[in-house]
């Protein structure tokens, strides 16, 4: 009652202070019009920074524009799209991206869920360890990239030293970043190290949302911890896990900064993710039309896959 009275008081106060001319104009507007008035600035901003560039990029994707040349854009039809879809090297880069996305997500989910189960046990000092585990995701990708580059340095890097210590191999006898076989796994490793805490947080939110009485009922029914995990924990955390997969898949698919700092796509093109190809086409080769077409293809791929996935996620939630 007090709250209602207060609100009425504030409204009356505002009405009294509103100039008569403005009040008259606002009074003449419908609720719908007022609603539009409020969301219009946001809509305009969204159009200006999201929708307009998207439409512009789609338009450019049908041209042979090179942004570093003063020559105007000329229409080339579907040539850019044909070039992209028939380019063997680009397909290889899509495969490299798929490898990176699959393995980073698989490892992040496994380790993230494991860590969440551990932290959820509320052991002594668990708050401290939670903070420690969360540290990597709070760092800038630029810091992480440079820091791991140093760790992987064959002569002075502690990573090689540790591997050498446990396996007996000479530390400078192998290189993580420079090896064709190891570099694809190196970027998976670093990305997993950085983003697993994020997955852990999402899983932890899921675990904390499971009511205790369900476990108590299961214990009364003498369900083993493993059975409790398979029948209670996993099904109830699954929507959260699927959400984590969605976020991390998008993040990994457009990953650029970390990999660019670690390997720049090398050695050769063994870690050249599609995002790096896109950057090279757009800002090194200045093939603006071609790069726009590639960006459109990436956008459609991510948007389409995310939509299908969200539908599946909703189905799981309903179940």
């Amino acid at each position: 009652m007090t709250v209602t009275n207060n609100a009425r008081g504030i409204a009356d106060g505002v009405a009294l202070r509103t100039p008569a001319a403005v009040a008259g104009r606002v009074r003449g507007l419908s609720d719908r019009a007022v609603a539009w008035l409020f969301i219009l600035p946001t809509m305009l901003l969204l159009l200006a920074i999201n929708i307009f560039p998207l439409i512009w990029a789609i338009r450019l994707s049908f041209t042979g524009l090179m942004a570093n040349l003063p020559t105007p854009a000329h229409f080339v039809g579907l040539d850019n799209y044909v070039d992209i879809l028939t380019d063997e090297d680009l397909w290889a880069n899509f495969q490299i991206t798929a490898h990176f996305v699959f393995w980073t997500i698989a490892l992040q989910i496994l380790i993230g869920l494991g860590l969440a189960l551990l932290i959820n046990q509320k052991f002594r000092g668990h708050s401290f360890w939670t903070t420690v585990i969360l540290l990597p995701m709070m760092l800038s990708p630029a810091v992480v990239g440079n820091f791991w580059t140093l760790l992987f340095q064959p002569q002075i890097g502690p990573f090689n030293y540790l591997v050498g210590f446990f396996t007996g191999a000479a530390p400078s006898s192998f290189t993580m970043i420079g090896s064709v076989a190891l570099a694809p796994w190196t970027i998976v490793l670093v990305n997993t190290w950085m983003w697993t805490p994020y997955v852990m947080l999402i899983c932890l939110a899921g675990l904390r949302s499971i009511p205790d009485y369900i476990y108590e009922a299961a214990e009364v029914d003498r369900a083993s911890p493993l059975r409790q995990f398979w029948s209670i924990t996993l099904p109830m955390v699954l929507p959260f896990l699927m959400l984590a997969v969605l976020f991390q898949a998008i993040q990994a698919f457009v990953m650029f900064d970390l990999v660019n700092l670690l390997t720049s796509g090398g050695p050769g093109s063994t870690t050249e993710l599609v995002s790096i190809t896109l950057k090279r086409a757009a800002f090194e080769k200045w093939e603006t039309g071609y790069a726009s077409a590639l960006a459109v293809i990436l956008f459609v791929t991510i948007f389409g896959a995310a939509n299908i996935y969200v539908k599946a996620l909703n189905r799981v939630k309903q179940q």
Partner: protein
Amino acid sequence: MTKALALIGLVAAGLSAAATVDKAQAQAKSLTMCWAAWDPANALVELDKDFTKLSGIEMKHEFVPWTSYADHFINLLNSRSSECDLIIGDSQWIGGAAENKWYVKLNDFFDKNKISMDTFLPATVVGYAEWPKNTPNYWGLPAMADAVGWTYRKDWFAKPELRAEFKAKYNRELEPPKTWDELIEISKFFTGKEIDGKKVYGSYIFTERGSEGITMGATNAMYNYGFDYMDPKQPYHMEGIVNAPGAAKGLDVYKELFKCCQPPGLTNAYMSEGLDAFKSGQVAMQMNWYAFFPGLAKDPNVGGDKIGFFKNPAGPAGDFTQLGGQGLSVVAASKNVDDALLYIKWFAQPEVQQKWTDLGGASASKAVLLSDAYKNSAAYAPSFVESMGMVKDFWAEPLYVPLLLDMQNRVHDYVVADKGTSQKALDELVRDWVKVFKQEGKNPS
């Protein structure tokens, strides 16, 4: 009446103040010089003090690290920015700069001020000033002569036990290599040896992938085994030239050197990594640009008597080396073109060219470089002069960036990542380049 007088007084005071500001602005004229951030740029800062003393024009300097040098300045030029008045631009930019009118054409200015291109080394005029190549159309003044050369550990080469071992193994003296075969032999000889308590490697070569590194390195082997950019009689005809069997052999030789003798981890390494490897006593020989050699010659750990220099070794098809270096140009969008031209006129003077070299730059002036005084001035000088007479340069077309990045990809994929064969890499390179030239409106084949 009093008000009117006060108003007149105020206007007079205002006009007088404006005149004072104009005078001050005229006195405080300045020029911005743009270049890469490296050792010779420090020498230029010193040299420019003389220009300021003489002309009263203050010199400002904008130096950008090599990793972002091309991107940064090409963007500025392309956007018609007046941030730089003078620019020391890479040799490959000259085509784009001329055709897009980023630079001021200097022919009339040179004629008027009697600046002759004959006073500079021919290769530097073609490389840093002319577009189209080999025509008297000048867009810059040769400013910083440079080429790829080699350094070696003279003290290691002089060790009696190593010399004896080498002689026994190869039946010749351990001396700086004259051919690529010898270079590989010596590199293999040093690789894995323990010298001064440290495991060392034979040689350091360029492998950088992102900008120009591996191309600037591999071409030194490829030129000398038969690689060229096009048929000299048929412009833009590349089939059978770029991917000639000799060119493929040259690429194989570069890969062999990388596989046998490069220190581990240096798979994406360029100038600074080479300097580090050499200074830290990790390698016996190092490929790098001559511009760094004055600094290395003075290095307290590896300079002085410990360092030696040699030109790029020859191959069965010739004796060439990769051209580096830059020309000095006036930016067309500058608001101070006249002052910038005044600087060019000053910089072209023989005594300024001499001082430029003395301070640590590298003049391309014949009077400076071909003098006995220069040849005797430093240990690297004789091989530098020789190298400048055998240079070849990469494409300088307006679309040189995609051409360069295509070569970077193909060569790095083959040399470092073991993808395919050298012949396949060069066949694909021809395909890539044909596509780029078609975009440029040329008629390649």
